């Protein structure tokens, strides 16, 4: 029962539980909060794995950005009681079965991988090696040069800009909100 194991167990429980909360909560606002906790749990996992930069990035971007976006969406499209439409139990069953099957499949595949020997006495990787990996600089001098990820990184950032501009354009208000459609009405 070393500390990492305990920590992992704790964080895993939080994350998994929050995920279940997202799925099963009736109110979409509550689901958003559960999602928040889940994302925080993931970020803690990153810290545990020694990916500090990633953990920080996760907190800033996901929790602070994406989740806020989601909450904004909820706010803009709310229509009355937060309960919203119900899913039928049959659909839960179907989805549950499929999700269960997928889970089992992936777990069995993972178990087949075997346990790779964890590196002994190796310090957790920090930000430095991450930066070097970005630039493609080899760790031991004399090794071949690795792939440099700086270009994809820049592309992705421009892509983000473009996407946000497009999203802003798409989401502009064009006409006034139409009446709720009556059941059976054809368009």
């Amino acid at each position, binding site marked *: 029962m070393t500390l990492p194991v305990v920590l992992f167990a704790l964080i895993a429980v939080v994350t998994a539980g929050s995920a279940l909360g997202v799925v099963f909560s009736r109110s979409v606002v509550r689901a958003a909060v559960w999602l928040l906790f889940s994302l925080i749990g993931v970020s803690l996992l990153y810290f545990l794995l020694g990916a500090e930069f990633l953990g920080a990035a996760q907190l800033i971007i996901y929790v602070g950005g994406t989740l806020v976006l989601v909450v904004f969406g909820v706010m803009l499209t709310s229509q009355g009681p937060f309960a919203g439409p119900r899913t039928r139990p049959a*659909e839960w069953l179907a989805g549950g079965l*499929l999700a269960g099957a997928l889970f089992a499949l992936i777990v069995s595949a993972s178990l087949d991988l075997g346990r790779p020997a964890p590196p002994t006495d190796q310090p957790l990787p920090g930000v430095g090696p991450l930066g070097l990996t970005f630039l493609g600089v080899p760790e031991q001098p004399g090794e071949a040069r690795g792939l440099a990820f700086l270009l994809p990184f820049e592309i992705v950032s421009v892509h983000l800009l473009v996407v946000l501009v497009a999203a802003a354009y798409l989401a502009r208000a064009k006409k006034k909100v139409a009446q709720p459609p009556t059941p059976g009405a054809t368009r």
Partner: protein
Amino acid sequence: MLDLFRDSPGRLFVAATLLPLVPVVLLVLSGTARNLARPHGRSGGWASSIYWLLGGDHSLKTGGYLTLAAMLGSAVLAVAGLTQYFADAHDPGLSPAQIEARWTERTDWVRIGADRTDHPATALQLGYRIDRLTALLFTMVTVVGSLIFLFSLGYMADEASDQVTDHEVHTDGGHLHRRGRFGRFFLYLGLFAFSMLNLLIADNLFQVFVGWELVGVCSFFLIGFYTERPSASAAANKAFIVNRIGDAGFLIGIAIAFSVFGTLNIQELIARTPADGSTPTGISENLWLAMGLGLFLGCVGKSAQFPLHTWLPDAMEGPTPVSALIHAATMVAAGVYLVGRCFPLFAPDVLLVIAYVGAITLFLAATIATVQNDIKRVLAYSTVSQLGYMMLALGVGGWTAGLFHLLTHAFFKALLFLGAGSVILGLHHEQDLSRMGGLRRKMPVTAYTMLVGVLAISGVPFLSGWYSKDMILADALGFGAAHPRHVLLTVLPILTAGLTAFYMFRLWFLAFAGQPRDRHAYDRAHESPWAMTLPLVVLAAFSLAAGWGWPVWDATASYLGHLLHDGEPAAVAARFGSELAAAHEHHLLAGGLGLLMAAIGLAFAAFMYVARDPTIALEADTPLITLLRHKWYFDEAYDAAFVRPTVALAAAAAATDKRPTASVTDDTEGRRIDPGTLDGALTAVGQLSARLGAWLRTLQTGLVRQYVLVLALTVVVLLGMLTALTRNN
């Protein structure tokens, strides 16, 4: 050009065969041109001038003249060929093989298969072979044909106008008026002449069959010439269909011959058969019998023997020259001719069948003829009966007798038919004997030439019919003496000789003797023009003299008979030697019996129709007479046994194609798919596809979540497969 004929004088006959085709082609071309130009007839221009050149609104008679000229040309060539043939036959410097080479030629038309090492490829051939029988028959056909064509020019003269009234077709408001069809008649006649002559000179069964079918087709056209009359169309159909039944047998015979012997050449087939008529090597006995019966069945159909005799009387719906040419002198003779040609190919049992069929036919037809009132029907049944005589003769070994009778019969039967045509035209299309009478005063030429014909057919001495009929009766008697079991084959022909005399004299007495029974028709009667009476006179001369020899009073001394006798196949003497000897011995007895029966028949006819009032006999109505008048109910029997079931079967077959719902306005939902019917089955296939498509459509719900589920399912499946496949690595 004469070089063509010098080394192969047989080509004279080929030229004679092809000559009638020339007016046929010309008539077809001109008829087509005229029809195409007809719409422009009144509008001027060169189309219009072509139209009026070719006759305009009515046919020109030129087509008829051309056809007659072609037929006369054929007759001239035939006579030239005939004389050359007999010159060759009596030439001591020519061996039989050389004669054969001069008068036979053939060529391969269609090769089947490839040449093998031991024999060349089998082939369908075209060729001709002239021997005595062919030469004589060819000449007869062309001469009689020319006379009948001449007669037709007069008889069909009213078809050469643009307005013909058909008195037997009633439309609303009177009789039918139509355009005349003069050219078409002579077109068919020319085509018929070509087909018949081709049949005569053919040396292989395939070519014979081609000619056979062609004459059947021409007969169909000519019987149904008055197309607007339902009776004529029905008669044409009947003739063709009944003939077809016979042709099926013919084809079986041909098929057996070709498959077993590999050749259809008649001479080659004869060479393979032993002279005494036993089964040749290489063929089973049953198959040999089947081949003979098959060939004979074709002759039964073509020559209207029992049981396929029902078409000939109905064929009288055609114009009278057609009846004279086709159904008296030529086409029906084709069957007898084939039996004569293929005589060695018939097994003894088959010949016995031929004899019996002939015997039954001759008696049956004669009985029916005694009560018929239509002048042409009497002659039609007479033809059937005389053909029966010929078949009987051939069956009992009287090869010469049968074919001699064929030749003489052609002359006097054509004479009788043309005479009947003259009477019909003279009385303005009156054919009923019960309304005639006393016409000898108004139409003397017709009356007395027909008397010659009647005397000839009854077997009165010194006329041509006597010589041939005498020979037949003698051969029948000889056969009966040698085989007492088959006494019927002797009794029936002798008995029927009496019936023949009876009904023929009845015809003459009713038409020409006594007092007129229909005053109105009698007053309008007139003699026919010279174009029609000339052939009558010529044919009467032939009927009188064709059988003469020296001495005239000796029945066996006929010149024509001797010519034919020389051409007899060896098989006849080999098989029927003793019967023919017995026939010769009992010749006088047979002749006497025949004469006696004829005298009895004449006496009866004279008593019933001259001595007392004919109307007593005409109006008599006993059960026997009713049976005979209904032709022994053959037509009714065939109708019930064959026609009705076939029609019912056809109706049943058609019913499978009918839809269960008849309404066109039914929508798709309401219409049942009935897989029982073929139509329904095919529709069901189409509808199945549509339903499948409709069901597949329901999968596209437009719901995103459902698509996601399907996606997830697919991923699970694929991933599962991948894992399972890579599990044990």
